[in-house]
Structures are given as C-alpha cells and as structure tokens.
C-alpha cells in the first residue's frame, strides 16, 4: 500500500466532518424547543422578559443553525465522494431515509427559519410563533430520519442483499429497526440537555457579571428545571440503550466495558489501559460485579467478552472504552448540576449561589463533549463494519479516489473548519457579552410575583 491509505484517511475525514457538524444540531434541536417555550410564555403573559430572552437566544440559534447547514451539506455529498461503494450498496435503503429527511425536515426548517428571523414586522405574533414551532418540529423530524438511517447501519433488518446491493423488503422494519427508538430518544434528549445546560451556563455568566440579572435569573430558572428533569432521564434512557446494544451488538458492549473474556460477576473498570494486541487491560481499577449489575441487573449476570469476537472483527477497544467513560462521567455531572440547582432553589438561593453559577458556566461545553463521546462509542464500536455484520468499512470506500486526494481535502477541512469555528466562537461570545439587554419597563419591580419560582412559596428574593 502507498504511505497514505485512502481508507483510514476517508474514515478520519468523515469522523472529523461529522463530529464538527453534530455540534450544531445538538445545540439547535434543543434550543429550538426552548425558543418555543420562551415565545409561548410571551404570547400568554405578554411579559417583556420572555421576548427579550427569545430575541437574545434566537441570535445564537441562527448563528449555530447556519453552521449546521453548511457543514451538513458537505456530508450529503461526502457519502458519494469518499464512500461510493457504500453509496451504491446501501443507497436503496439509506437514500430514501435521507431523502425523507430533506423533504420533511430541511425544507420545513429552511422555509420557516426566514420568517422566524426576519418576519417580525411581516407576520402577526401567532403566525410568528407557528413559524418557531415548525422550525422546532423540523429539527426533531430531521433527527428522526437521520437516526433511523444510522441505527439501520447498527442493527440492519428489513432488507436483503441481492446482486451486490441491498433491496428493501419492509420499510417499517428498516425505519423502526431494533436500536432506533433508543438512539432517537438518547440523541434528542442529549440535544435538549445540551441546550438547557448552555442556557443555564450563559445565564449564570450574566448573573455573575450582573449583566441584567433580572432577565438572566428567569432563563437560569427555566434551564435549571430542565437540567434537573432531563439529566436523570438521560441516564435511564442511556441504560436502556446499553441493554439494547448488549442484545444486538455484543462486541461494542465488550469494548465499552473493556471486557476481554465472557464471564459472570464482571467488574466495571473505572480506569484501565486496554491492550488490543495482548487482549487484556493494564492498570485496571475495578468495581466488582458492577458491569454485570448494570448490564444484566444481576451481579452474577454474564457479560460478553471480546474473546468471542475474531480479532479482525473487533472494534478498536481503547477509543470506545475511554469515550464511554467520558460520556458517563459528564452524564453524572449533569445530574449533579440538576440536584445542586434544586437544592439552591429549595433554599431560595438559585440566582444568588455563585458557586452554582460558576459550575453552570464550566458545564457549558459538557453537552457537546458528551454527545461527541457518545457518537464515538457507537460509531467506533460498530467497526470494522459500516453496516454491522454485513458490509465492511474497507469495502465501502471509493476505489478510484486516491489517498492523496482524501489527505488534501482532509487538511483543507481541518484548516477551514478550524478557522470557521474560531469565527463562530468569536461572534458567539460577542452576542453573549451583549446579553439580552435591559427591560424597558421594570416589570420585575411592578410585578414581584413574576420572579417567583414555579412552586408557590419559593420566592426568589429580588435584589
């Protein structure tokens, strides 16, 4: 082979471009729902604070949505440029799923985003609210189709392999494949949780900076309720998703657990350095029986090991093992943030607890890191297959595209996306520093009930 192997370069390029892309939908799917909430509250109460929050967060939404659009178009063509064999073989299954995503989600989002951003003076408030709702629905429909497509590659069914490509026998079986419901719930909830954490963190920053705290405390309160509810929900969904993976992709579970030998009473490794060549772990720190307990809900349960998987069919264990630990660590930090917020709220100090506010600020990137880690677990854990158990990654690449072409475009992507991300962060921070602006009417003074928490009796003291 030449020094630059087109397959590994194509994998690196796809991993980089898809990971970069998913950062933006992860925020916008959840943020769209939060914008629906802000605008609904404004429509019902007429309070200025909600429209202030809407107009502040919609700027961040627009900036992020634009990044998602441009980085997403790349993917829809990269399937063909670098993965032409994959396109030809799986196109009859995945093409229509992606086509439905375009038809039912992308057009809906794009059509009403213009009204959402620029239509304030052109349509009435109810129609504007409808536009916001349709954009939010569009983001979830988009997630539905693309996760159906991804999940089919993890747990394929409903199609047979005829004449060198797939032919679909049953579309419902394809769409509602075994891993789809859990992956869909896990990812959409990850989006909601990420967006809630970002809103909480940015609001906390404004509280700490005393930048119109009367506005920031309202969004902080909403976001912390959301984190309190969504973080434990995500842990539960993640557990079910893991059980589903155990049933359908045991090799991935074995890699996540760093479990080399099938056994009962399997421990959970808090720390280990998996060694694929030696098929063992080094420097392992274990919680006895914990893996069996988590995966089978029985300390004596049997956990599959990599010894059942031929070496050429094993995923890279180290990456999967560590990405999984990053994800679950962050998952429990979200849980801690939610609990701390609830405790501070109970004591009536939600907007005053500066340590909580600092914790929330630090957690701003956590949702993105956790989501990308989760995707690394599920995608690297599926290797060496693109369609699990049926189509190998090595048989999916474009046969005529040279390693140097893929390397060149990979370097260009690194440079261009690096520069764009810098510009994105620069303008994002600029918007955040400006903040939502002061209320024109001091409605918080006139209507003290407006700053109460959702539970009666838990009055947040005004300054």
């Amino acid at each position, binding site marked *: 082979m030449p020094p630059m192997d087109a397959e590994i370069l194509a994998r690196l390029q796809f991993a980089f471009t898809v990971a970069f892309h998913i950062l933006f939908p992860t925020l916008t799917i959840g943020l769209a729902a939060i914008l629906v909430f802000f605008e609904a509250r404004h429509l019902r109460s007429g309070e200025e604070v909600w429209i202030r929050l809407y*107009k502040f967060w919609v*700027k961040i939404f*627009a*900036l992020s949505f*634009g*990044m998602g*659009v*441009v*980085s*997403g*178009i790349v993917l*829809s*063509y990269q399937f*063909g*440029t670098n993965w*032409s*064999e994959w*396109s*030809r073989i799986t*196109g*009859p299954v995945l*093409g*229509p799923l*992606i*086509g*439905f995503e*375009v*038809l*039912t989600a*992308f*057009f*809906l989002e*794009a*059509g*009403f985003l*213009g*009204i959402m*951003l*620029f*239509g304030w*003076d052109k*349509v009435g408030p109810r129609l504007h609210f409808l536009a916001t709702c349709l954009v939010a629905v569009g983001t979830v429909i988009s997630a539905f189709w693309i996760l159906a497509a991804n999940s089919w590659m993890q747990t394929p069914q409903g199609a047979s392999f*005829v004449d060198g*490509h797939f*032919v*679909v*026998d049953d*579309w419902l079986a394809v769409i509602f494949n075994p891993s789809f419901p859990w992956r869909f719930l896990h990812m959409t909830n990850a989006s909601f949780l990420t967006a809630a954490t970002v809103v909480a963190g940015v609001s906390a920053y404004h509280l700490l900076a005393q930048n119109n705290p009367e506005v920031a405390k309202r969004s902080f309160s909403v976001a912390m309720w959301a984190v309190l509810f969504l973080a434990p929900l995500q842990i539960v969904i993640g557990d079910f998703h893991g059980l589903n993976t155990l049933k359908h992709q045991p090799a991935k579970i074995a890699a996540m657990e760093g479990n080399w030998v099938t056994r009962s009473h399997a421990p959970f490794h808090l720390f280990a350095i998996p060694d694929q060549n030696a098929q063992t772990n080094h420097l392992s720190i274990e919680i006895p029986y914990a893996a069996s307990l988590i995966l089978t809900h029985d300390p004596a349960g049997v956990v599959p090991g990599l010894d059942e998987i031929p070496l050429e069919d094993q995923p890279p264990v180290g990456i999967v093992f560590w990405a999984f630990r990053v994800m679950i660590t962050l998952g429990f930090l979200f849980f801690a943030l939610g609990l701390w917020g609830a405790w501070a709220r109970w004591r009536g100090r939600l907007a005053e607890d500066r340590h909580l506010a600092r914790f929330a600020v630090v957690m701003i990137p956590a949702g993105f890191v956790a989501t990308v880690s989760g995707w690394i677990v599920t995608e690297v854990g599926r290797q060496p297959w693109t369609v699990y158990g049926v189509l190998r990654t090595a048989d999916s690449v*474009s*046969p*005529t595209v*040279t390693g140097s*072409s893929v390397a060149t475009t990979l370097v*260009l992507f690194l440079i*261009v996306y690096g520069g*764009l991300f810098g510009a*994105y962060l620069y*303008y994002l921070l600029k*918007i955040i520093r400006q903040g939502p*602006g002061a209320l024109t009417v001091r409605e918080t003074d006139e209507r003290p009930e407006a700053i109460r928490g959702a539970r009666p009796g838990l009055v947040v003291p005004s300054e």
Partner: protein
Amino acid sequence: MTDIAFISAGVIGFAILMYVVLDGFDLGVGILFPFAPDETSRNTMINSVAPVWDGNETWLVLGGGGLLVFFPTAYSIALPAFYIPVMAMLFALIFRGVTFEFRHQAHTSTELWNRSFFWGSVVAAFAQGVLLGALVQGVHVEGVRYAGGMFDWLTPFSILTGLGVVAGYGLLGATWLVYKTEGKTQAWARNAAVVLGGGTLVAMAAVSVMTPMLRPMIAERWFGGLNILYLAPVPLITGAVFITLFWSILGKRELLPFLCTIGLFMLGFFGIAISLYPNIVPPSLTIWEAVAPRSSVMFGLVGVAVVLPMVLIYTVYAYSVFHGKASAEGGYAHHEHE
C-alpha cells in the same frame, strides 16, 4: 406499467432546475457583491436573499439526496468522478453560507466577509458549471463503477460551462436585484444585467455549438432525420427570450427580466436533457440501468408525491411574506440594540 425510472429522472431534473434557478439568483447576488455602488447597496442586496437562501440551497441537498434515492449507482459513479469540483463547490458554499450570519455580527471585519461571500459564490457557481460540463462530456464507467482518474473532468469544455454558469448566475442575480431593489442599486443592477446578459448569450451559444461536437450521438439527436424540425423551436425560443430580456431591461421593466432569465435557464436545461436522454451518466449508463430497486423508488416517489406539493406551497408562502423591495435596514437590523 408506468416507467418509474423516467418519473424518477423527472423528479431529479425538477430538483436540479429548482436549485439552479433559486440558488442561482442568490449566488448571483454574491457574484455581483464587490461591484455594488456602496456598502448600503450591499446591505440591501444581502437582505434581499437572507430570508430565503437556506431554502434555496436545500434543493441542492434534494438533488444529491434524490440521486442517492433513485439512482444510487449514478451517485456512486458521479461523485468520485467529480471529486475535485464537488469538494471545491462544498468549500465555497461553506464560505458563502456562513457570511449571512457572520457579516451581520461583524463590525470591523465586514470587508473580510464581503470577500468570503464573493469568492464563495463565484467558486460555487464555477464548480457547478464545471460539473455540468464534465457530466455532458461523459464519464469513464466500467461496470457499475467509475474507472477514470481524478482530473478527467478538467477540459476546455468544462471550463467553458463553468464560466457560462458564472455569467448566467450573475444575470439571475442582477435581474433579481432589478426586481427587489430601487434607486441607485437598481440602476446599477440594470447595467450589470446588460453586461451579464451578453456574457450569458455568448456562453450559451458556444456551449450549444460545442455540445453536438462532443459525441456523434448528440449530433444525431439534434440533426438526424426530421429531429431538427421538431427541435428547432428550442434555439428559436431561446433567441426570442434573449431579445425580450434585453428589451425589458432597457425598457426599465422590473420583474420581466428576471422571468426571462429563468426562462433561459429552463430552455438551457431542456436542451441539455435532449442531448443526454436517456443517459443519466453519459455516454452509456441509462436511467433504466442506474435506477434503484423498485421498493426504494416507490417509497421515494410516494414521499415526493405527498410532501413536495406542501413544500412548494409553503415555499411560495415564505417568499410572499418577504414580497416587495428589500431595504438596507430590513431583516436583521430589526433585532434590538445593535
């Protein structure tokens, strides 16, 4: 039995034509960007397309996605074959697309994003023209796979079609601005439309002359037997539309030049379809050979039949919300406290 391959090709053709016309005018606005009279004009220009560009570009994803739905073999041949122009287009569209958000947030770096908008639009338009030329001139296929090199697409013909599309998109942009702006910007756009109309005329004529020389089959299609009589209306109507275009620009009509330009694109598209049919990847792969399995095509067509009419309805609605002249202060400037 109805010919599902033919219907599918019609769907792809419709998506591509919608894309070319819709994103064509907003890419054209980008192509014209640095030549605008002043920064106020540029603000008006970008405001005239900001609410709709994202929807326009979605047709490109439908074109690519649709090809994967209905003709996965053609998709898997064309994209590796056109690797470099496709990648150039994608990078250019990134720079063009982020400008809408970044430029509006920028204070000191407006000039940087003006350049990003211009170069992104020019390179995307040129790359799309190259893709068109590279497809028309034919692709080296063996079996179901691309069998050529990384630079097969690069020929004088594809460079010509690249330049032609830049001129054509520029014309779409200029006539769109005649329709959507007034005063100084409109007067400037009129002059630009005359120049670009001339450029588009030259390019279309040159491509029309060269295309039948590419392969005997194309010449046979146009000139064989009585075909020339049946097909003569295509160039004749094109000529008439060009005359109407220049007449309407000079007569200071506002909407007609834009409609004429759309007409030119439709005629050009129709001419190319005549030259290539029934091949989806010339010179040999036909729509019947490349079409996806029946279960996939039917599922896709049902989706198109049910959803696409709704898409068209709300797209028309979204455009109607932003009817009338664009202004320099419109759009984003309505956000609070800049």
